[in-house]
Structure formats: C-alpha cells, structure tokens
C-alpha cells in the first residue's frame, strides 16, 4: 500500500491541495519482457461471458446507489475534445467540474460538506491555460491529450515535444495514444520505446496510455498492448480516445484490468485504469465500479487508480440523484450544463 494517504478517506478535496496526489508509489516501469507479452492468453468468448454477468451479479439500491453514483462523479475526467473548443467552453466545463451536482441535492443526501468534484478536466493542449485558470484553487487536476492524439502518427519527435509542452503549460496529467501500427507489425520494442519516452517527457505529470481498443479489436492484442504500456511506465492505461468506432466496453475493460492485476502481482506496482468513451448513462458506471471492486479491490475506486473519461455522463447521474432525493423522475434541463 501507499505510504501516506489512507484509502478510506476517499479522494474528495474538501480543501484544495496541489494535484495530483496518490496513495501509491508511481509505476516506474520495467524492461520490456517480450516473452511475457507473447505468452498472454485471452479467450474472448469467456471474457465476454464474465463481463456480461458483472452488472447482473451486482446491484446497488437506495442510498447505496446514490453513494455509488456520487463515487462515479468523483472518478470522472470531465472531457471536451472537440475541434471547436474555445476557452469559454472550457471555462463552462470547469465550472461544472467544481460543482458537478446541485448543492441542494447534495445537502439532501447529507453530503453537502463533501466538497464533491470530478476527478480531472481533460482538454486539448491549447485549452490548458483556460482550464488551469478556471480550476485554480479547486485542487482539480488538468489533463491534456497529447502525442498526436487521436491517431498517434505524427513524427515521434513532435509527439514527445507535444508532451513536454503540455507539461510545461501546467498539465498535471498527460493522456497519450499508442501507435497502433507498432502492434500490427509486431514491433513491441518500438511501442515500448515510445511510451517510455512519453513517460520521461512527463516528468512529474502522470501518464495515461491510450490503447485504442476499438482499433486493436483482438482481445489478445489489447492485453499485450496493456502490458507493454505498463512496462514502459504508464501510470494509467486507458481504453479509448473516444474517436474510435467502438470505445470503452466492459469486456475490453476486463481484459485490461486483468492485465493490471497480473502486472501488480509480478512487479508490485499499481497501475490505474481509465474507461473512456461510450459511457453516457449512470447505470453503466455501476458495472465498472463493481468490476474494479471485485477484480482489484476497494482501493481501485479512488481517482488515483480509476477514472471514467466522459462528457455527458455527469448530467445523467445528476438526474438519477434527483430522483433518489425527490422520488420523482427528473428532467435534464433541471441540471446546470457544462
């Protein structure tokens, strides 16, 4: 376990503090072990069967459901990654990040003092200053996508430089995407070297490596890419850019989570997981939370080890929370937009 923070305290920042903090030692990475990568075995049908029963074996109701929904918000990287983003748009997003749920609802649930925020705000490089500005004092970290996002095919030197510049601009977390071509050509070493280079470029900032599961398709590839990224020192592995045809799903998440467990068992290092894209409904998050809790344990329900990457999820959760408080089904326009 980590050395300072007690996991039971959660990760809600009543008092803003310098981000990002973590209860565990950062994954330093390890040399590439190709035998391990090649030995990975994943049975797609069996994974799908298991994934299908995760949400059906676990159900939370009443105040448990409300608390789990609040947890989902606290684990969300509120995201805008559109070509038409502007500082104004990002500021609205950040305002929502600070106060993701109406105060009257929080008060009604007895969590008004919790200081609930989302886990981070995730933007393009150009929007980092606006986000930093808008989040000042909130303790909410700013994450930036970098390294040729979302294709990851611009010149490596430029991709590394992009990471460096985003870090220099003040981003606390960097979400990079792997070069999928390295996987298809079997060039694991190149994939490892690139992620390793991004990790070095990150310095103190945390690195999330996007596997782009929708492009990799084959579950064994997803498992292998996950391993290589962890070996190269990723703090998080992340499913998707949000731009692939298929984004986060429970089966591919399960594959990645099992690899996180395998890596932890072998090296002792904890790596986080981020499910990104396609998670729009509150109910979907319960399956993910149950998966993290049952597969990896309670500590993986903290923002230093688990995130949702989503843009519209928070408002759906809000509606469910209002229903919990009032007993009436809610409408979207009753909750402030981002």
């Amino acid at each position, binding site marked *: 376990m980590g050395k300072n923070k007690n996991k*039971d305290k959660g990760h809600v920042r009543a008092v803003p503090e310098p981000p990002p903090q973590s209860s565990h030692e950062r994954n330093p990475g390890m040399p590439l072990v190709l035998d391990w990568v090649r030995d990975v075995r994943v049975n797609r049908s*069996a994974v799908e069967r298991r994934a299908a029963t995760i949400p059906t*074996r676990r159900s939370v109701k009443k105040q*448990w459901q409300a608390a789990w929904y609040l947890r989902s918000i606290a684990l969300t990287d509120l995201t805008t990654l559109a070509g038409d983003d502007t500082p104004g748009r990002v500021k609205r997003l950040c305002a929502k990040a600070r106060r993701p749920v109406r105060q009257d609802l929080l008060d009604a649930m007895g*969590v008004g003092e919790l200081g609930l925020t989302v886990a981070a705000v995730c933007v393009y490089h150009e929007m980092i200053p606006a986000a930093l500005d808008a989040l000042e004092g909130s303790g909410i970290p700013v994450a930036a996508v970098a390294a040729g996002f979302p294709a990851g095919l611009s010149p490596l030197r430029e991709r590394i430089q992009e990471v460096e510049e985003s870090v220099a601009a003040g981003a606390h977390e960097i979400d990079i995407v792997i070069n999928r071509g390295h996987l298809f050509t079997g060039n694991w070493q190149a994939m490892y070297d690139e992620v390793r280079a991004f990790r070095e470029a990150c310095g103190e900032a945390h690195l999330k490596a996007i596997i782009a599961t929708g492009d990799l398709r084959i579950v064994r590839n997803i498992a292998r890419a996950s391993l290589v990224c962890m070996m190269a020192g990723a703090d998080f592995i992340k499913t998707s850019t949000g731009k692939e045809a298929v984004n986060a799903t429970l089966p591919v998440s399960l594959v990645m989570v099992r690899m996180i467990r395998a890596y932890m068992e072998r090296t002792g290092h904890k790596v986080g997981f981020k499910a990104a894209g396609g998670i729009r409904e509150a109910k979907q998050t319960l399956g993910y939370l149950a998966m993290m809790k049952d597969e990896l344990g309670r500590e993986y329900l903290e923002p230093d080890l688990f995130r949702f990457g989503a843009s519209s999820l928070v408002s759906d959760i809000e509606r469910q929370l209002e229903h919990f408080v009032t007993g009436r089904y809610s409408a979207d326009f009753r909750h402030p937009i981002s």
Partner: protein
Amino acid sequence: MKSASVAEIFQSMDYGPAPESDGPAREWLARHDGKLGLFIDGKWHEPDTGRHFDSIDPATGSVLAQVAQAGEASVDAAVKAARRAQPAWEALGGHGRARYLYALARLVQRHSRLLATLESLDNGKPIRETRDIDVPLVARHFYHHAGWAQLMHSELRGMVPVGVVGQVIPWNFPLLMLAWKVAPALAAGNTIVLKPAEFTSLTALLFAELAAQAGLPPGVLNVITGDGSTGALIVAHDDVDKIAFTGSTEVGRIIRKATAGRAKHLTLELGGKSPFIVFNDADLDSAVEGVVDAIWFNQGQVCCAGSRLLMQEDVAEALIAKLRTRMEALRVGRPLDKCIDIGAIVAPVQLERIDTLVKLGVDEGATLHQPTWACPTEGSFYPPTLLTDVHPAATLAQEEIFGPVLVAMTFRTPDEAVEIANNTRYGLAASVWTENINLALDVAPRLAAGVVWVNSTNVFDAACGFGGYRESGFGREGGIEGMYAYLEPAFTKDLPPHEDPPPLPAPIDPPQTEGLRAIDRTAKLYVGGKQARPDGGYSRPVLGPDGGLVGEVGEGNRKDVRNAVEAATKALGWGSVAAHTKAQILYYVAENLEARAAELSRRLVEMTGVSRAQADRELMATISRLFSYGAWADKFEGRVHSPPGRNVTIAMHEPMGVIGISCPDDAPLLSFVSLVAPAIATGNTVVVIPSERHPLAATDLYQVFDTSDLPGGVINIVTGEREGLTKVLAAHDRVDAYWYVGPKSGSKLVEELSVGNMKRTWVNNGRRRNWFDLEQGEGREFLRQAVQVKNIWVPYGE
C-alpha cells in the same frame, strides 16, 4: 447496515441489500391459502392421503406453504386423466400441439418474474440465476419444442408418441427440469404425470395452473406432489408407458430395477463428477471464472457441475492462487438479493451431507480453502470451498458432493488428463480449457461425457442434447435426440408376440453315409478374432427340425464371456477406424458371404427346416443388410448446432463401446447380421450370443470374418445356453450397452441385470420383429441404439 448514510457508503463503497420483492409470489401462495393441492385433469384436487407437508424457504427455514402428499389413488387418478387426454392430444397433430407449446413459451415470458421469484424462494438459488438463466432457458425450451411439434410429420416421420409419461424431476432446477421433461413429451404427443421434488414443488404447480389458464386441455399435464413414495407409485403404475427421471444414480438404479421387464421406456439423467481440465496454455483468468460458473453456480447443486479441477502441473500453483483470490470476492446471501453470487443450500439435510463429506476429505488429507468472510448463520448456507491435495483415490475425487465444493488435482500430460478425467463411474459433462484448438479437439472426443464444454462450462441450449455416459444415465434432453426419447416407431405396438420355437424332437441317430465321412467341423467360440475352445471343454449338439444332428458348437460359460468382453474391450480402437474403412469391411463381409451362399443356404435348410427358397431369401436379405450398413457406416453422422452466442456445438455420434447382444432364433442368420452390422458399422465392438437353437448360422461366419479384414475382437461370439450366458454378459460392468431379442422373460432379466453399471438396454419386450421387413429390420432405429450423442461446445472469437 440499513442505517448507513450516503456519506458513509461513499467512503466504504460497500454493497448494500438489493432485494427482489417476493410480494407477487407470496400473493400467489396466499391465494391458495398457503396450502396447495394436486393439479389433476385441469383442476385442483385434495390428495387422497389427506396429508400435506411443509415446503421450506431454505434461506430462513420458515414455512412457505403446505404441499400435498399424493398416495396411490391420487397417482391413479392422475394417470387416468392423462390416459383419457392422450388420444385427443395426439390427434391434435403437430401444428395443433405447436400452437400450445408456443403459448406455453409465451406464458413463461409473460410470468417470468413471478416464476423466477417463486423459484428462488422455494429453492434458495439466487434470483440472478432464476431470472437470467433458468427462466429464459425454460421459455427457449418451449419455443424450440413448439418447432419439433410443427415439424414432426417430416422430421420424425413414422414415429408415434409412447403414450402416458411419468416424469420425476429433481430440486436443483425445478422449473428448468420441468421444461426439459414437459416440452418434448408434449411436442411428441404424450400426456404427462409429473412429480416435482418434495423440496421444490411450487413452481411446477404454478406452471400447471398457468398452463391450464392458457387453455392447455385438462389431463394433458398433471402435476402431483409428494415424497419419494409418490415417485415410486408413478414408476410402479402399470398404465405409464415411459418414465423419465432426473436425480441421483442411487434412485435411478431403483427405478431401473422397478421397471425391468415391464415394457416401459426409460430415460435417466443421473449424477456426475465432471472434470474441469485446465491446460497450461489456457487463459487462466477466464478459467477461474469458468470454475465460478462450474461449481459455484446454483450452490454447486448441479448434476453436471465441474467438481473435479484437473490442472496441468506447471500452472497449478498460479491457478490455485487466482481461485483463492476470486473466492474472497464472492458473496453468499439471501437468494432474493440481487447482489449475491451464492444462495442457500436447498435443505438442512443437504447442508449436513456437504459438511460431512468436506470433513471426510480433510480427514483423508485434503487441504481446505474457504474465504475469510463468514456465511449467514440463519438458514442453510455453505461457503465456496476448494480442496487441494486431493488424489484420484480420495473419496472426494469419486463421490458426488452436490455442493459448492471443488476438489483439485494435477496432471502432467494431455493423456494423463484424459485418464484421470475418465477415472470415474460417471460421464455427464467435462470442461476443457486451452487456447490450442488442436488440443481441445483432440481431448474432447476422448472424454467419457455426454457434454464437453471447450473454454466454457454449464451453458445450455434447447437445440443441443444433454445427457450422460456410463452411470450418469442414458437418453438425451434437447435437440432431435431428445424427441426420440418420447417416441417409438409406429409399428412397435402392432408387433406380434414372441413365439418360442417348437420343442426339439428327440435326437435321432445320424444316417449311415456311403464312402468317406465328412471331416469333422466342430465350431468353437470366436474370441479376439480367433476360434477359441470353450473354457469348460464341453460342446452342445445342434439338431435339425427332425432331431437329426446338424453339428456341434462349444458350450460357453462365464469365463468365455469374460474373455470375449476382454477381447471386445481391447478392440475398441475400432471406433476410431475411418468410416470408409468400416464400410469397406462390411461390403467385404457381404462379398465373402455371397461366395459361400450355397453352403450357408443349405445349412439354414438343415438347421431350421425352411424351404431352400426361403433360405435363399434369408441369405439375400442378409447380404443386402450388410450392404445397408456398409452404406450407413459413413453416413450416420452427427449434427452441428448453432446455439446463441458465438458457439458451434458439434453433436458427435460416438459408439456406445462394447455392446452385448442376445440374438433370437427366428431367421438366425439374418437376425444375427441385423443386430451385429449396425453395432459395428458405428464403431462398437460386440459380444454376441447367437441363436441357441441355430447357432451354426453364426459360427459358419468365422471364416467369412477372417477373410474380410475384420480386426480381431470387433465381433466375438459365444455359443451355448442363451439365458445363462445372457445373465453373465448383461451383468458385466465393462459392457456399455445391451441388446436383447428373445422371450419376454429375457427382457426383464437384462433390464434387471443392467443396474450394476447402468448400461443402456434395448430389449424386444417379448415382441417379434419381421427381420425381412426393411422398416422393422434395419435403419436409423438400430443406428441410434448403437451410438450416444456427445455435444461438444466450441465457442470461438479472438
């Protein structure tokens, strides 16, 4: 727990209670004043005994309802109602019945949550399982069988329903086992008397009531309740044409004995100790979830539960570590809680049995692994349990526990895995985990099991037959093979009774012949491809119709039977000889037989007294029969099913193994070949007791076999006193199936003696086939008896 605040839960991230409401289920019970009768002839009846017993909620130990104890008069009333309803139900025709089965499927879906909740209450199984697995499979089963009813006229041509069916079902999947029994029986045109298990009678009664409301004609489905004595009354009832039973091998054996010689059809789906084999190239994390589905599904109270974990040595340690971690995250609790994995054990008596067996295992040296958390103390709960350091010789490696208890063993090679897997009296199911399809498809056919799941376990579909090898029973449920279990060829009921041949006249002295006497030709026995002198050193005379000596044959005894079975067992490799080769050999036998046609025909005349023309006719029919099975050898093939999901299910026809055959006296050559040829065409080896009166028809074939490339041991022949030899052969535990054609008393004998290893029997019940008739004398009916269907599930996708 209830008082936990949102803020507290936000920190703890505990699961809370998530109860499914039992309101509607309890309302249904209340509508019956908590006291249920018997559902006979479309109406509720009080039991003749006037007695009721408690149905208990195993999660709390409280009484759910009172269930009726049916006695003899009630059973009789139910059978009479079924008998009355049967002709009209059959006459309704396939499409008419399809409409009802379709309505039953819809009914199950319409009342799905009520059925799921009541099942969970009564049985103790998690609501997730009844809601997501049991009830949807029930609906699927009725849909599928609506289809068989519809297609009967074309796909099951020439078959008729057996009549009134008695069905006795177990408590582990009360409603699903009802569906597996009721759907094919009704589709085929039978009417039913069904008895659910005494622990779990409620959903069957609810189903019967709903079915009647949906318009199912009175008497078509009668549900009567009671303990084992009620089941015994159904089994003993003279007017029940077939018994279908799912339950323990112990009770199956009692039923086999009780029905012996009574011309009742019988299918048994019995116990298991199914292997769950993990090779070193398996996806271990997925294999762990497979174990969860194998042994921690339905509290391990599953006849096909993967209860023996066989691990390749080099991954054993890793797999056990993963399993122990996984066990910690399982949740045991109230069955109606939607957030649990394991519910309640069905009754305290079962809990006690599990506890006793586990303690015995530990006493025998096994290491016990259970999660650190504690089970609820109220109600019947048992934690998920893993026992390591178990060896094939341990009691727990052989005995069915029927609880959430897994025993783990290791192996070194695929051959050893197969050997350990098959080292059991049972043969219901097996799971094989490997990412190597070559290995999976090599191992699956070698496992003695009716179902083999590759990289999966406990998946079911109505199109894929389910049923066991060995002491796990016989007959299949699901698919077309399941329909055959409720049908018989239309000609069966009209077959004339067996006639004993006229008594032999007194032996007369052989006439003196002129010149050189013929060279003596005393036929020996035929064992392992060689003529063998009978162990006892005696021969018996074979007399013609006038009492004249036609020849002598060996007088076989117990030891000759034993030797023949050993030879047949050694020759089982015949099963994997290419179908083309088998066909060639059968044709070759026909060819060589024809070369000796004149001699064989003369022999028939001498021995049986038929005219030369009739003898020639028998010979030609015999040659044609051999051709038929030469033709069939490469054509009686299995099926490929496409169950839901990404799955191919290969329904393979596998030989039964060693088949014992007792042949009749009529048409001695033709009947011998009619029985032996389908058996060997499908890959079985046989031990045959030929006609006692006319054994030379068989012994004359030794040289034909010898010159036809037939491998030694595929056909073994023991001549002698038929019933005496039949007794030894039918009781032999290495004989996998028995075919008997002869007097009625012999059918009873064979069925009674089969209980030792629960071999599948096929007897003529004292009826006489016309061997010359193509419909009665050859074809699919024979081939079906010669094979057992193994369903191999192969999920795919990368």
